[in-house]
């Protein structure tokens, strides 16, 4: 029911009506989906309905609802696999968020495979979630960490890539920057990394919610993302990994559900993905994530991306013509090279002051370093005010943002 029954573009008025918070809070202009997306009615209802009719712990009981709950979780796993083009549902590990997935790769694969003196290559635009886990491991094992620089245009500078990759065992890269919106050439980077003998762990937190994802075409080894940025609930994330890597990796957390056998002498692990899912999983959240994927597939991911390219072009054009040199929008200037994330610098105003004024107009943006302090240093700023769009945003939201920015300029009149 995705393609032919819909017009070519998203009907944002209809989409917005699907989101109870947005429908009931007409006073809000929500432009913080890069931090977390709002939830459509169907996700909220699916979770409530599951609690009211089907809830039980999974993979344990033999009674009816326990079996049904287990089936719903496994059906969601299959849905996630299909959504990202994974060859098998067994390659889908449910985590609590993308951060856990990235930590799992570092602590499980990294500890088992890296040796003192090995190098890890990251980019300067990584989120702390794809930096700190490697820094922790570097402290534990004695690793070298190298960095792919970011240019003034918001793109990775790859002229020195071959030298940087020499001797590298892991490349950690974001598929889309949460600050700049930059879409990184993951497929090319993965090919280069593999040629150099490295594996590739991708932070796809900002990418998967907004783009058609094909993990095979991407060519990476691990991909982590979060449910709550893709219209799903908080508390559930996904790690996809290539089956042969997951099978060979030691468990990350130990506990119930991840074992095959336990004696006083020791344990043996369950096969992947259950090996990496110790303890009771976020059952209802997994089911909710499945509903979010259904909703996104109904909209059509191609159409989601197209909508955001159009909206990005409108935002860059509108903000550029209205504020000229007094507003700097970090990141690539070409909509095709970026997602709908706009990190703004308005005159010399501090992002907290800007977002405080925006708040009085109901415009919700994020101010701060966006968990990307190394990138802030590259940009030469302490923080930015970041507006980000999703399926429910349209031109009127960008106009409201522009009006509120003008109000901030007027209020501080510097």
């Amino acid at each position, binding site marked *: 029911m995705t393609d032919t029954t819909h017009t070519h573009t998203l009907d944002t008025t209809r989409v917005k009506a699907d989101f109870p918070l947005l429908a009931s809070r007409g006073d809000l202009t929500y432009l913080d989906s890069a931090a977390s997306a709002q939830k459509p009615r169907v996700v909220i209802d699916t979770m409530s309905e599951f609690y009211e009719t089907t809830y039980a712990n999974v993979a344990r009981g033999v009674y009816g609802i326990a079996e049904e709950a287990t089936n719903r979780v496994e059906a969601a796993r299959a849905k996630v696999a299909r959504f990202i083009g994974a060859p098998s549902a067994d390659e889908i590990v449910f985590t609590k968020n993308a951060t856990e997935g990235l930590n799992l790769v570092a602590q499980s694969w990294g500890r088992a495979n890296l040796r003192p003196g090995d190098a890890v290559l990251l980019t300067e635009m990584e989120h702390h979630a794809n930096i700190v886990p490697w820094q922790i491991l570097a402290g534990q094992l004695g690793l070298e960490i190298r960095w792919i620089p970011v240019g003034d245009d918001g793109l990775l500078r790859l002229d020195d890539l071959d030298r940087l990759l020499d001797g590298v065992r892991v490349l950690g890269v974001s598929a889309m920057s949460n600050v700049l919106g930059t879409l990184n050439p993951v497929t090319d980077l993965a090919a280069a990394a593999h040629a150099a003998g490295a594996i590739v762990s991708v932070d796809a937190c900002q990418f998967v919610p907004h783009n058609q994802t094909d993990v095979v075409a991407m060519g990476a080894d691990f991909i982590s993302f979060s449910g709550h940025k893709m219209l799903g609930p908080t508390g559930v994330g996904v790690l996809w990994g290539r089956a042969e890597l997951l099978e060979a990796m030691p468990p990350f957390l130990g506990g119930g559900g991840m074992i095959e056998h336990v004696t006083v002498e020791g344990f043996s692990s369950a096969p992947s993905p259950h090996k990496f899912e110790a303890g009771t999983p976020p059952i209802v959240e997994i089911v909710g994530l499945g509903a979010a994927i259904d909703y996104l597939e109904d909209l059509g991911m191609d159409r989601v991306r197209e909508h955001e390219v159009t909206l990005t072009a409108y935002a860059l054009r509108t903000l550029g013509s209205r504020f000229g040199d007094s507003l700097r929008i970090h990141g690539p200037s070409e909509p095709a090279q970026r997602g709908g994330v706009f990190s703004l610098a308005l005159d010399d105003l*501090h992002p907290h002051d800007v977002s*405080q004024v925006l708040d009085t107009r109901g415009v919700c943006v994020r101010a701060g370093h966006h968990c990307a302090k190394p990138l*802030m240093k590259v940009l030469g700023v*302490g923080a930015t005010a970041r507006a980000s769009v999703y399926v429910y945003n349209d031109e009127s939201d960008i106009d409201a943002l522009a009006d509120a920015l003008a109000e901030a300029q007027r*209020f501080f009149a510097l």
Partner: protein
Amino acid sequence: MSGLEDLYREIILDHYRSPRNRGELPAPPARRTEGFNPLCGDEIVVYVDLDDPSKGDAATITDIKIGGQGCSISQASASMMSAAVKGHTLAEIEALTREFKAMMSIHESTLEGEADAIDDTGSADSNGSGVPALGDLEALRGVVKFPVRIKCATLSWNTLAQALDESDQESDATA
């Protein structure tokens, strides 16, 4: 929603636009302390010169300079603080800091209500103790209505307290 004017009083904007005691002091002999607000990435550097550190609480801040970068609230608070503490003894500054922090403290009973409901801690300006008056700093009272911004206002104070607390010449503070 409280009005912007409650937060950004004119005197605050004045200190933001024309910060007092902005700059650096050679350290040593000055003490140099950095403070960070990990939430927003703001950082502040406080330089203080004391007349005679061996005098303990009776030592006087002879000069103070503020460096770093931050939002209008953190910059204005630092500017006002620098003007308020210069020429005062550490004991007096400690009392002023207590008074300021009390004004900035947020209690459950006031979370929902008006900041004005907080008891006035009593102005010390006329008691002849030498403790400087809050004066301009009173303008920051409105920040309490915006709880996420309280740390912006207290960053420079925590950094100064750290600078005065220790004998090390180099140190870090976190808001």
